[in-house]
């Protein structure tokens, strides 16, 4: 479904990504793990055209999307929920969700249904529907960010660090929901620092180390892979 073919990204003199090959198949949860600064977020940003690639190509459903700007990708069916939540703090929860469905303008019925669906997934949000998003707690903001990215009805969802800054029990909740969303047919590419959690929900995983892919395998096998454990999971 999504394929990166030897993609490299340079920031000035530094090569942030070098020759990355990556594939995500329909219906999968694929996770991209690695230490901070290994290039995980850069990979996501490169897919979404937010940083220019210096070489290589990116394909989505057979079409090349290497230079496509982010807002067009949303139309093509790729939604990203960026690192650090990035919700629109001065707008209400409802407005945030409506913006998530920006590309579906005019389809009021669909939007209404989708909002209801998000509230089903995150009942906490429905209580605060007219509250300004900036006043939500960290966990609620993360939920909103996720709900917002679902509003576009993406085929592929890119999640960057959903666990960042959340209390552990919330993290588990978030991962639970990721699994649920996936069951409904949304393919997910998950970027996580918290490798254990990520590997538990994912089908397959890629391990990034300073800009290139070190190991890739199924999540189960990676969890058992001692070398990976030693190098990237700590403990």
């Amino acid at each position, binding site marked *: 479904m999504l394929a990166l073919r030897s993609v490299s990204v340079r920031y000035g003199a530094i090569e942030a990504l070098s020759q990355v090959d990556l594939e995500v198949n329909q219906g999968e949860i694929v996770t991209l793990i690695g230490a901070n600064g290994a290039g995980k977020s850069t990979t996501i940003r490169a897919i979404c055209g937010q940083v220019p690639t210096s070489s290589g190509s990116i394909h989505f459903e057979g079409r090349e999307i290497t230079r496509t700007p982010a807002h067009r990708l949303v139309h093509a069916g790729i939604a990203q929920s960026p690192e650090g939540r990035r919700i629109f703090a001065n707008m209400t929860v409802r407005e945030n969700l409506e913006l998530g469905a920006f590309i579906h303008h005019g389809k009021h019925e669909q939007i209404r249904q989708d909002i209801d669906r998000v509230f089903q997934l995150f009942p906490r949000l429905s209580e605060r529907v007219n509250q300004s998003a900036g006043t939500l707690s960290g966990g609620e903001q993360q939920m909103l960010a996720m709900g917002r990215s679902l509003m576009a009805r993406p085929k592929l969802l890119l999640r960057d660090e959903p666990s960042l800054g959340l209390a552990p029990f919330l993290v588990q909740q978030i991962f639970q929901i990721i699994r649920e969303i996936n069951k409904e047919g949304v393919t997910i590419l998950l970027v996580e620092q918290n490798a254990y959690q990520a590997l538990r929900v994912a089908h397959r995983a890629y391990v990034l180390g300073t800009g290139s892919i070190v190991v890739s395998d199924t999540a189960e096998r990676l969890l058992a892979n001692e070398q990976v454990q030693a190098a990237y999971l*700590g403990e």
Partner: protein
Amino acid sequence: MSLLELRGVTRRFGGLAAVSNITAHVDTGELVGLIGPNGAGKTTLFNLLTGVYAPSEGAVVFDGRDTRGMRPCRIAALGIARTFQNIRLFRELTALQNVKVAVNLRARASLFSAVIDTMGQRADDARLEALARECLTAMGLEHVGDNRSCDLPYGLQRRLEISRALATRPKLLLLDEPAAGMNPFEKQDLMQLIRTVQTTFNVTVLLIEHDMKVVMGICKRIYVLDYGQLIAEGTPAEIRANPKVIAAYLGEETI
């Protein structure tokens, strides 16, 4: 007497207490760890110690002096130096220049003599440069001194920050996730280095780290923060066994 003492320090943002009622101390020569999940208030605490924020309540006493109301540069002059979680180097300056900014605290010549370029200032400059190079060498950066700091690889940037902090010749060094983004081997190296530096520069260290394993490897004493509160204090072994800490890190099954 403790080098650093926190007496019931609280900091509120709006109604939210980012750090509440913390009482703690760091003694001279110690290497203390400060851990806690993301968003627990560790960095806020550092900002309170260095004067970026003023405490809403309570007091920070360093070296026998209450630092309330002092500006960060005064506190730095008293002997607290820090690194930043999101690297804050002087990007356009070279590595050596970065460190030189910090050795200014030990300059003798006045700005005026620098500007008219007197002999005394040249001697002082030479002395300061030597000090700066010494700090670079201590962190293993002597070969990149002339590179622009923003061109350095990530790991070296982290080291440069420590080197820069050391250059102020602090009594207390605050390290904010110095090993973030490194793999475990690099982390080990860095921790080793920190320990060496601690002894050679004779500096007390307070260290924020995410990775429990790393902290436990080098710290004798650890504080644990969660939701702005101090939930535990003790040796690594004690911390590891503390149920509150486990709950904070692993979470309770509450779905």
